[in-house]
């Protein structure tokens, strides 16, 4: 019970950010409000799941995001493709949009990742989990996860260097011609 109380205290202190986590999925402020409440109801209904949480805020971010995804599924909402999302952002003009070479390259790079590694990247980059916390949460040895992430980083570095070389050669060829 005490752990749930601590978790709810973190929840209350980060309400705005957790609302935003819901909003990133449902894109609607009122629906985000419902998700915020649904997440609390789930936490209160199953307090036993709140024990041994190493990173409360990251845990809550993940909970809210998962709840938002469930909400979409329950309401039969279609998940847009990446291209549709990119088009929406491009046309709403809410954010300065630049479809740069880096973005295209990252997209190509993460497209080929296995789904578990994508989840690791989301939780690490977006939710704020550290690798040891993630390993504990996923129930795998930390070293295994470290090795996986190291391989991923190495692959990204190598591919990026190759891409830069190709761009450089392309520009050189243009200059020569």
């Amino acid at each position, binding site marked *: 019970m005490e752990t749930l109380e601590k978790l709810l205290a973190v929840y209350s202190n980060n309400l*705005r950010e957790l609302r935003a986590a819901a909003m990133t999925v449902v894109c609607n402020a009122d629906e985000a409000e419902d998700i915020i409440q649904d997440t609390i109801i789930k936490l209160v209904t199953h307090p036993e799941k709140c024990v041994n949480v190493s990173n409360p805020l990251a845990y809550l971010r993940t909970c809210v995001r998962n709840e938002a995804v469930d909400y979409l599924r329950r309401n039969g909402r279609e998940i847009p493709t990446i291209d549709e999302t990119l088009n929406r952002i491009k046309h709403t003009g809410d954010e300065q949009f630049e479809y740069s070479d880096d973005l295209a390259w990252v997209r190509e790079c993460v497209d080929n990742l296995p789904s578990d590694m994508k989840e690791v990247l*989301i939780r690490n980059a977006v939710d704020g989990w550290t690798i040891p916390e993630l390993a504990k949460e996923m129930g795998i040895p930390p070293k295994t996860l470290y090795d996986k992430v190291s391989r991923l980083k190495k692959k990204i570095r190598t591919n990026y260097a190759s891409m830069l070389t190709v761009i450089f050669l392309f520009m050189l060829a243009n200059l020569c011609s």
Partner: protein
Amino acid sequence: MRRAKLYKVLRKHPYLLDPRIRMSKREALSLIDAQPRQDFKEVIASAKERSKLGDCAWRAADNVVARQVRRHTFFNALRTPWFRRIAIAAAAICIISVFFTLTPVGRTWAAEVKLYSVEILHGTLSVEYEDSGITAKPSFVPNLFDLSNRSGAHSIVYASLKEFAEQKKLNPVMVYDVGVQLERIEGETYSFGEALLTVYRLPTDAVLLLRQSWAECKMTAFSSDQTEYWHYAADEGYELYYRTDSDDTFSAVAVLNDSYVLIGSNKPVDADWLMSAFIIP
């Protein structure tokens, strides 16, 4: 690509990893902030209505809400670190203000601090506070001839030194000898006390200026690090520090019991003669 750059791109475009995340956190926050939202207490109240769970299940949430309400009262706000710091700083300012304005010791200190900070006579003489009293320290040769630049002074021309002494109840010094003419007597009122400017013409056609200042604190002596540049002489009731510069201008400071006198001349002045002609009432 460095990890930081990759993560920056992923945070800005999270849908690359998961198409279900359709916007960045930054975009979501801007939309959230566009309208006022429920606070935690209201969120819990709404969640209670929707869930139909018993009160027992909500005990933890109620405790958090109660703690938040308590935190928003004035005395509990004192417990928060930022409020505590502000309160301590405000209390310290109040105590210091009361000390320096209401208590006799504080008022004396305030006067001394004020005197310390004021550059008396436009920087020609700085004054420092020490255990033994106030120390006059000439920072450079006083330019007493620059009469045009005396901001902050309220000056009155007097016909005689006696008139000044009677009006101000102060004892001005004077230079008295055969052929010495007193050309001008001007009293000045500064925030730190009274001053008197007297201009003499000597038989050698030199112009001798004296500026006697009555500060609120007692004057004692020069600080030791300045004495090597100045000659020292003492007579009954005062000490004299003097020097003649390369351009033949003469400057001196006489430290009296109740005041100090800055002395300047556009020509060399014999110190022995000056001491013999210097009359302290």
